[in-house]
C-alpha cells in the first residue's frame, strides 16, 4: 500500500524583479520529481549540499508551497491544505535539535502543542498521552518541567521526535536527524527511531548526506543531484551496483577503513549555476563518460534492472 505519493513535484524560487525589465526565470531548487513510499517503508534520500533535499522535505510537510505537482497521503490529495491538516498526517524531525525547540517553553508545553492544537485533546487525556510518548522515547517524566537548554544534543533530538509522535502522524520526515550528533549518540537515536517505527506503524523519509547511515536504516534509497532524482534503488544494492555515474562517485568518495586514499575520477567538482542551468544532464560537467548527447538532452528516469531506476544516457 502506498503511504506517500509525490507527482511532478517541483519548486522554483522566484527572484526579485529588477527595477527595469522582466523578472528573471528563478532558481529551480527541485525539478519535477515523482516517487512513492510504501506503508512501513523507509525511503532514504541522499544528496550533497545544494541538491534540493531540504526544499523537498519542507514541501512534503506543507511548510513550503510547491510550484507544481501534488502530494498524496494514503490516497488523499493534500494540495493547498493548511499546515494543521498536514500536521496530523505527516510530521518533521529537524536537523538541529537545539534550534527546533523554543528556548522559552518547557518540554511539556512543547509536546503538548500538537495534542492541543491538532487533536483538541482534553487536559486530562493529554497528561497520560504525554507520559506514554515520553516513555517510548526513553526519557524520564521529570524532564517535562525543564527548558530545552538543559538537555544534550541526543536528548533534545529525542524530545523533537516525541513532539513529532505526539501529532500521531502516518509519516515522519527525518531531515538529517543525526548529523549534529556524535557517533556514539547517533546510534542511540537511530536505533530508537527503528523501534518507534515498528511500535507505531510509521513510514519514514530519511534525508541525509551520510551514505553509510542511510544504507543502514533504509529499504530504498533516492539519490538527488542538482534538484532532480538521478537514481532510485534498493538500499542493499544501490551503492554496490550503481548505474548512475554520480551514485558511483558518491560511493567511491565515502571514506572506508581499509580502502587506500584516492580521489575518485571526476573533472572538477562545481555544481552548475542554478541561475543558468545547462540544457542537458546536470552532471555532464563532472562526468567522465559524458557525450554530446548528455550535454544536449536531459535524461529521463528509466528502469534498469529489477528495482533500480537511473536517469542516465550511458548507465554503468
Amino acid at each position, binding site marked *: 500500500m502506498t503511504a506517500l505519493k509525490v507527482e511532478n513535484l517541483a519548486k522554483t524560487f522566484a527572484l526579485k524583479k529588477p527595477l527595469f525589465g522582466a523578472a528573471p526565470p528563478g532558481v529551480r531548487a527541485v525539478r519535477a520529481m515523482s516517487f512513492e513510499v510504501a506503508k512501513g517503508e523507509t525511503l532514504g534520500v541522499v544528496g*550533497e*549540499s545544494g541538491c534540493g533535499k531540504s526544499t523537498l522535505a519542507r514541501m512534503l*510537510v506543507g*511548510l513550503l508551497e510547491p510550484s507544481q505537482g501534488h502530494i498524496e497521503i494514503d490516497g488523499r490529495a493534500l494540495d493547498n491544505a493548511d*499546515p*494543521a491538516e*498536514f*500536521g*496530523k498526517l505527516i*510530521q*518533521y524531525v*529537524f*536537523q*538541529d535539535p537545539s*534550534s*527546533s*525547540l*523554543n*528556548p522559552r*517553553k518547557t518540554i511539556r508545553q*512543547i509536546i503538548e502543542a500538537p495534542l492541543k*492544537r*491538532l487533536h483538541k485533546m482534553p487536559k486530562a487525556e493529554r497528561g497520560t498521552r504525554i507520559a506514554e510518548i515520553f516513555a517510548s522515547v526513553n526519557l524520564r517524566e521529570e524532564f517535562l518541567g525543564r527548558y530545552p537548554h538543559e538537555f*544534550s544534543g*541526543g536528548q533534545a533530538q529525542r524530545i523533537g521526535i516525541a513532539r513529532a509522535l505526539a*501529532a500521531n502522524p502516518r509519516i515522519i520526515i527525518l531531515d538529517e536527524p543525526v548529523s549534529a550528533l*556524535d*557517533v*556514539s*549518540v*547517533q*546510534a*542511540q537515536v537511530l*536505533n530508537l527511531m*527503528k523501534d518507534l517505527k515498528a511500535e507505531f506503524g510509521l513510514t519514514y523519509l530519511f534525508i541525509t*548526506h*551520510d*551514505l*553509510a*547511515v542511510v*544504507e*543502514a536504516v*533504509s529499504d530504498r534509497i533516492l539519490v538527488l543531484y542538482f534538484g532532480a532524482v538521478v537514481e532510485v534503488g534498493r*538500499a542493499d544494492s544501490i*551503492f*554496490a551496483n550503481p548505474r548512475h555515474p554520480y551514485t558511483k*562517485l*558518491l560511493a*567511491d*568518495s*565515502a*571514506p*572506508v*577503513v*581499509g580502502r587506500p*586514499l584516492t*580521489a*575518485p575520477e571526476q573533472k*572538477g567538482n*562545481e555544481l552548475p549555476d542554478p541561475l543558468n542551468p545547462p540544457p542537458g544532464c546536470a552532471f555532464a560537467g563532472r562526468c567522465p563518460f559524458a557525450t554530446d548527447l548528455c550535454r544536449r538532452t536531459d535524461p529521463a528516469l528509466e528502469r534498469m534492472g529489477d528495482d533500480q531506476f537511473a536517469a542516465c544516457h550511458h548507465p554503468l
Partner: protein
Amino acid sequence: MHFLTLLFRNQLAALGAVVLGAILVAVLLTPVLPLQDPNATATPDRFLSPFAEGHLLGTDHLGRDLLSRLLHGTLLSLGVGVAAALIAGIIGSAIGIVAGYVGGRTDNIIMRGVDMLMAFPYILLALAIVAALGPGLLNALIAVAAVNIPFFARNIRGVTVGLAGREFIDAARLSGMSHTRIILTELLPNVLPVIIIAMSTTVGWMILETAGLSFLGLGSQPPQADLGSMLGEARSALITYPHVSVIPGLMIFLIVMSVNLLGDGLRDALDPRLRSGALSRPRAITLVEREDEVPAATDDLLAIQDLQTQFHVGDRIYRAVGGVSLAVRPGECLGLIGESGSGKSVTALSVMGLVSSPPGVITGGAVRFQGTDLIGARYEALRRMRGDRVAYIFQDPLSTLHPLYRVGDQLAEAIRSHHKVGHKEARERAVQLFEDVRIPNAKSRIDNYPHEMSGGMRQRVGIAMALANDPDVIIADEPTTALDVTVQAQILSLLNDLRRDRGLAILFITHDFGVVAQLCDRIAVMYAGRIVEEGPTTAVLERPAHPYTKRLIACVPELGGGRRELAAITGLPPVVNDLPPGCAFAPRCDKVRADCKHGEIALAGPGARAVRCLYPEADLQKGEETTA
C-alpha cells in the same frame, strides 16, 4: 530573584539604581514635603543664591523657589520620558514583529514607510509635528514618541526575522498553531528581552529629547516647567547667575546617567552572551599559568608534553585538556580522534597559543618545536613561528577566511608577514601556491573574494595559505568536516600528496575513523581531555585495546554493511568540570570493575602502542610480538 542578583552584581548598574531610586523617592515625596508653591513669584527675591534663607537652592528670575521647581520639573520630565519610551516601544515593536513575521509584501510596504520616516533627521520630524500641533508638553511627548517608533520597528523587525527563520517556528506551525498564537506565544517571549533592553536604553534618550524641545520653548509652556524649560529660561542669565542653569542641567544629567547605567546593567543581565563572558576579547596569545616544572626537551620535531589547558568560566574550571603528550616526526601524519568535547581541538590550538583567553588558560606541560618550548615563549617569538614553521588549516573555510579581502591578498599577506618580499613577488608566489593545490585558473582566481568560491575551493585556499611559508608542521583541525563527501575525498588526497612531496608532518584532528584510516600513520584517541589509546593506525583499528575505542569503532556505520542494528554507547561523555576519579569512561563501560573508579590510570604499553586501561580488550604484548 536570580535576575536581580545578576543585575546588581554589576556595581555600576547598582549605582544607577541607587541614584535613580533617590531621585524617584524625592519626586514622589514632593506633594507631602513642606515646599513652596513652584509658581509663586516674588520679584524682590529674584536670583537668590543657593542656601539663602528659606530657599535651599535659591530662586530664579521671577523669585520662584528653585528646589520646588526642580522637584516638580523632574517629575514632569521623568513622566514624559517614560511615557514616550513606552508608547514608542509598544507601537514600534508591534509593527516590527508583524512585519518580521508576516514578511513578503506587507513587510516590504511597512519597512518602506519606516525608511521614509528615518530619512528625516529626527528633529525635523519632531519640529514639524510640534509646528503643526502647536507648542506644548503633550505635543512634545507625541513628537518624541513618534520619531522613535521607526527605530523600534526596524530593530525589532530584524530580531524577529532572525527568529522567524528558526526551526521552532516551523515546528509550531506543524503542531497546528495559528499565526496569531505563534506571534504571541512563540515569538513574543523571545523578542521581549530585546524590547526591554531597547526601551531601557532609550528612556534616557527620550528624557533628553523632551527636555530639548522644552528648552527650545516648544515643550512645556509657562508657568509649568519641566527641567528643559527651566534650563531654557535660565539661559539668558547664564553668565550672571549660573546656578539657575546649573541646577536643572545637573539634574537632567544625573537622571539620564543613572537611567543609562541601569539600562546597560539590564542589557548585560538579559543578554546571555554577555552573561557568559563570551564577548571578551581573546588575547593575541593564550594565557599561561604554569606552576609545575616544564618537561625536558626531546628530539622530536613537534612534541606536546603533558599539556594541560583549562577554561575558567566564573568559578568553574573546565579541564579541556588534562595532560596530553604527543609527538610528530617529519613526514608523519598523526591522527587525533575524539568526539565533540573530548579536547582534541583545544589540544591543537594550544600548540601555537591560539586558544581564546579568556577563558582559556594553559596550566601545565610544554609544547616543543625542535626542542624550543612554545608555551613559555614571548609573543613576538611565537608570532614568528606561527604560519612560518607551524601552520594551521581550520574547519569551515567560509568562516575562517576574511570575507572582505581577496583570497590572493590574504595569501600574500601570510607570506609578507614572515618574509621581506615585494607585492609583485608575493602575488606570483600566491599564484604558484594556488596551482600547487590544484585550483584551476589560478591567475584569475586569486582576485576572488571567499564568497565567490565553492566550499571545496575555499578549503584549497586554506591549504595554500598553510603552505605559504613552507612550514615543517601542519595542524589540520577537522579540515573536511564542513565539506561534501565528493569534495572531501579530493581534499584528503591533495593533503596526502602534499605531505609526501614536501615531507610535511601533519597533526590531523577529526572525529571520523574512515578519514583517519585513509590518511594517518598513527592515531591517538581522546576521551574527556586525555589520550586513552595510541598506536599505528591499522593496529589500533584492527585490534583496539581500550573499551572506548573498540565500542566507538563499532558505532560507526560503514558503507557496504547493509541494513542493520547499529551499536551505541549508552550514557553521555562526562562534563570536564566534574570528572569522575579513575577512568573517565568507567560510568559507560560494560567491563568496569571496582578499581577502575579510583586512582590515576597510566597510559602504558609496549613499543608504539599504549592504552590507558586496567583491563584492555586486547593483549598488547602478544599483539606486538605477532605483528613484529
